[in-house]
């Protein structure tokens, strides 16, 4: 039995949990069986995916499913193994978290049956090796996650969120369907091996790229296809939000990488321009939108959009280097992107788990109703802090390493010969730097408003620590963030066969470097050692604390806050999420979101309250989707008349349609 068999059996076992969940969804034991079962299965899948990645081999399997003369093909290569690791790791930790978190589910029968199906579908997408099984798994993934978004259908806004999600998911699947149709060609060679053997011509490949961007990009959350994401991800239960943000978007990245790097043949240089520009816009728009939010889960969801932008910047650079036949640089850029995929799955899951813990403890998602949780929930606060540092790309944690690698790849790009790239790459680098800095601002806000300061509501004041399963899952992820940050060489080495398979180059082996330093290209060029940086910080902080302990006064006294001599008793005078973002809203939002602030001051002597109103517009929703929705509504209204015709008129319409089609056919030939 090889690794692929194990993974397929794991997916089948997860699917087998679905009828079980239907049967025992209402009983309290259901939670233990379903989440415990998912945990065990994902743990096994994780072990076998890790082993497969380490072996860097490929396996094939054909199962007698689907159309009898085709069957369903599955394939496990290093790329699939790497993403199988992400899927099964995320699945295992989410299941573990849900063992505790699921206790608070009001209607478990609405969550439990969809959950294992969602996990199985994501791993099947990664394993699929023909267009049919890929699309079936993709649709199962969309539908099961849609069911999970609808789990709390009575809450305001959730029905709309899942409707928008369904529309966008159908659009994405339709694009991918067309994309595979183009790649397969008129002969209908739908197996990936056949597509790979007969790469399409340049025009077809370009069209396939565009469709892959639309199809995979809409699932991943590329701007402007991201609109469903900040609605749907927060609506689901938190462990599912973690899976949707941390893992499902990564499956979409996998689909993009599989189609563009593996199936569509050698890339043209301008593909890279398109991907880079989209990635850069996505990164900056995502983080700016995240800064404007005051709902914690929605902030995290918008932040996923930013991270997807960073991943796509890495993928775009890899495409450019591949088109320029620079395999080493392409391997560096691709490794940076995949490393960020792995990192983001870790810290975004951690942060969604943390937001779930906050939701459990307080019943609040709105940061402006929280505050001071660090006292009631110190452990959650610590784990969440690690996630915030990691996602803000600060050393020595893992987010920094992948962004550092992306910067190193950007610094190699003057060697690219095309003018459009020469002009685009520096600007993309600047936008990446901007989004990294804004991300730090965003998480100072998220952490500061939620966990620090004074409680703004009685619910926040009464918050207590959550159960042990949730805490253990969060600390496991925090530990992984630290490990991947201080020992990045092992992750890079593990990703090396993936890069070799896709772009034909390898980064130098990192595990053999002295002191576990990472050296992407050459020692004189750049190197970074997270372990030493962490050790130095710990040593300096320890030294400083010792010196203070030895020489300084040890007295401490508690007193009311000073606040320039004018302390205010009301916690409402603290900065809120909205006021914290005010400077950035003024600087960036005035252009991007047409943000306006209106202050109405009553004249002196008038006792009516002063009013302050800040308005923020979403340019993409208002500029693209609202007109589109209006057009669809208008067309539906006009076409409504067609429902009330006579039978003669219908027959006439059918005849006209036939004539029209025949005419088209005649002109075509």
């Amino acid at each position, binding site marked *: 039995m090889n690794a692929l068999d194990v993974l397929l059996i794991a997916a089948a076992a997860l699917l087998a949990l679905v009828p079980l969940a239907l049967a025992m969804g209402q009983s309290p034991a259901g939670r233990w069986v379903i989440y415990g079962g998912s945990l065990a299965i994902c743990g096994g899948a994780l072990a076998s995916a890790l082993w497969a990645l380490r072996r860097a081999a490929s396996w094939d399997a054909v199962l007698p499913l689907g159309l009898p003369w085709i069957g369903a093909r599955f394939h496990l290569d290093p790329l699939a193994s790497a993403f199988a690791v992400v899927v099964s790791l995320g699945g295992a930790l989410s299941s573990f978290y849900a063992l505790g978190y699921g206790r608070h589910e009001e209607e478990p029968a609405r969550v439990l049956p969809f959950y294992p199906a969602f996990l199985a579908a994501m791993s099947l997408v990664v394993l699929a090796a023909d267009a049919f099984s890929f699309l079936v798994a993709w649709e199962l993934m969309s539908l099961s996650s849609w069911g999970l978004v609808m789990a709390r259908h009575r809450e305001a806004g959730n029905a709309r969120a899942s409707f928008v999600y369904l529309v966008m998911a159908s659009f994405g699947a339709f694009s991918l369907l067309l994309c595979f149709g183009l790649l397969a060609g008129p002969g209908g060679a739908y197996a990936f091996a056949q597509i790979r053997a007969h790469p399409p011509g340049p025009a077809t490949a370009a069209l396939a790229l565009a469709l892959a961007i639309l199809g995979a990009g809409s699932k991943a959350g590329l701007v402007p296809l991201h609109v469903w994401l900040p609605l749907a991800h927060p609506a689901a239960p938190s462990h599912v939000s973690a899976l949707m943000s941390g893992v499902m978007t990564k499956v979409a990245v996998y689909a993009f990488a599989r189609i563009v790097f593996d199936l569509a043949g050698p890339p043209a240089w301008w593909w890279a321009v398109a991907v880079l520009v989209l990635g850069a816009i996505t990164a900056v728009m995502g983080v700016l939108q995240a800064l404007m939010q005051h709902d914690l889960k929605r902030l995290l969801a918008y932040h996923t959009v930013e991270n997807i932008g960073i991943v796509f910047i890495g993928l775009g650079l890899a495409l450019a280097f591949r088109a320029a036949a620079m395999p080493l640089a392409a391997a560096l850029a691709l490794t940076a992107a995949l490393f960020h995929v792995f990192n983001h799955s870790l810290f975004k899951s951690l942060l969604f788990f943390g937001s779930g813990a906050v939701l459990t403890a307080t019943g609040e998602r709105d940061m402006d109703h929280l505050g001071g949780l660090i006292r009631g929930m110190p452990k959650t606060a610590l784990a969440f802090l690690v996630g915030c540092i990691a996602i803000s790309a600060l050393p020595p944690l893992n987010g920094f390493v992948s962004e550092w690698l992306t910067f190193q790849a950007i610094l190699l790009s*003057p060697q690219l010969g095309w003018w459009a790239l020469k002009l685009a790459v520096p600007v993309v680098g600047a936008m990446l730097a901007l989004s990294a800095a804004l991300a730090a601002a965003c998480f100072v806000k998220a952490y500061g408003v939620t966990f620090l300061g004074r409680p703004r509501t009685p619910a926040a004041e009464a918050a207590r620590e959550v159960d042990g399963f949730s805490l253990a899952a969060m600390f496991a992820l925090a530990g992984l963030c630290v490990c991947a940050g201080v020992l990045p060489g092992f992750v890079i080495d593990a990703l090396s066969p993936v890069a070799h398979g896709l772009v034909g180059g390898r980064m130098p082996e990192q595990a053999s470097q002295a002191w576990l330093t990472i050296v992407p290209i050459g020692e004189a060029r750049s190197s970074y050692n997270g372990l030493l940086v962490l050790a130095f910080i710990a040593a300096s902080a320890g030294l400083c604390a010792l010196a203070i302990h030895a020489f300084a006064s040890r007295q401490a006294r508690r*007193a009311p806050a000073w606040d320039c001599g004018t302390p205010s008793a009301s916690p409402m005078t603290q900065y809120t999420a909205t006021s914290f973002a005010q400077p950035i809203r003024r600087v960036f939002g005035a252009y991007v979101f047409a943000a306006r602030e209106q202050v109405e001051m009553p004249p002196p002597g008038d006792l009516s309250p002063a009013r302050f109103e800040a308005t923020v517009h979403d340019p993409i929703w208002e500029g693209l989707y609202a007109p589109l929705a209006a057009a669809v509504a208008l067309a539906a209204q006009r076409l409504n008349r067609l429902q009330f015709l006579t039978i003669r008129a219908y027959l006439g319409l059918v005849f006209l349609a036939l004539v029209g089609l025949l005419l088209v056919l005649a002109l075509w030939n």
Partner: protein
Amino acid sequence: MELSGALAIQGGQMALVLALAPLLTGFIRKAKARLVRRHGPAVIQPYRDLWRLMRKEVVLAESSSWLFRGAPYLIFAATWVAAALVPTFATGLMFSWSADLIAIIALLGAARFFLALAGMDVGTSFGGIGSSREVMIASIAEPAMLMVIFSLALMAGSTQLSTIAGYMLSSNVGLRVTLALALVALIMVAIAENARIPVDNPATHLELTMVHEAMVLEYSGRHLAVIELASSLKLLLYASLIGCVFVPWGLAPAGASWQAHLVGIAAYVGKLALAGALLAVFETAIAKMRVFRAPAFLSAAFMMGILGVLLLFVSRGGLQ
């Protein structure tokens, strides 16, 4: 021998930056005072202040948490590690390969992250105003700094600071437009990052104009001493960085004799004095801007950085 030498240089540098940082702050204060015909406090006044603060008891706000007490040490540690990796008098630092220039700037970013969180911790409106303005300034200053790093790294073919300094010392640099743009951008970023006039005023206690001071408003005693020392270190770090990259003369190369190192130290002190004097003159001659003019100031630095990088991209076929 070589190893112990490198270790000695590394240790010497760590001690030197720590010892000199308050002196630079004191020197700038003295110079500013003399420029407006005041006597001003003694140059060693910052040391006395630190000692006084250390001896005092800490008054903690009732609503402060463990993060408030731990943050000063982390801020200091991150700043000190960053300062230890910028070549001051010699390039042969033992651990210069453990973090390149991007990582050094990111370490400063980590320090700021904790400082901003500490500002939010007590839950006062001044802490919030300081933190929110600080992250706004940083959100433009950091990318501008990265653009400066890109310019230098593309020219020197490395993001390692010792390699960049070595490249700047070599004869094939010449006068470049990008270098000039990077220098101006770097100085502007350094002014903003260190909360100097015209972006922020280190001496102000006018509530509505504070940024940095508002964040540390609730700190007292030993915690405040550690934070003050960290801000002096940061100022010294930026002065060293500008010196190391743009005025690298006098830097002792790796494996040089001890005389060369003495010359290096003398040159370094001279550079610091010059930088301090220039900063004092600049600060005296200019008025502080409104907070919402600072983004325009920093955007100019950002644009200059991008322009410098673009020039490098279009003017050269590639790196060596």
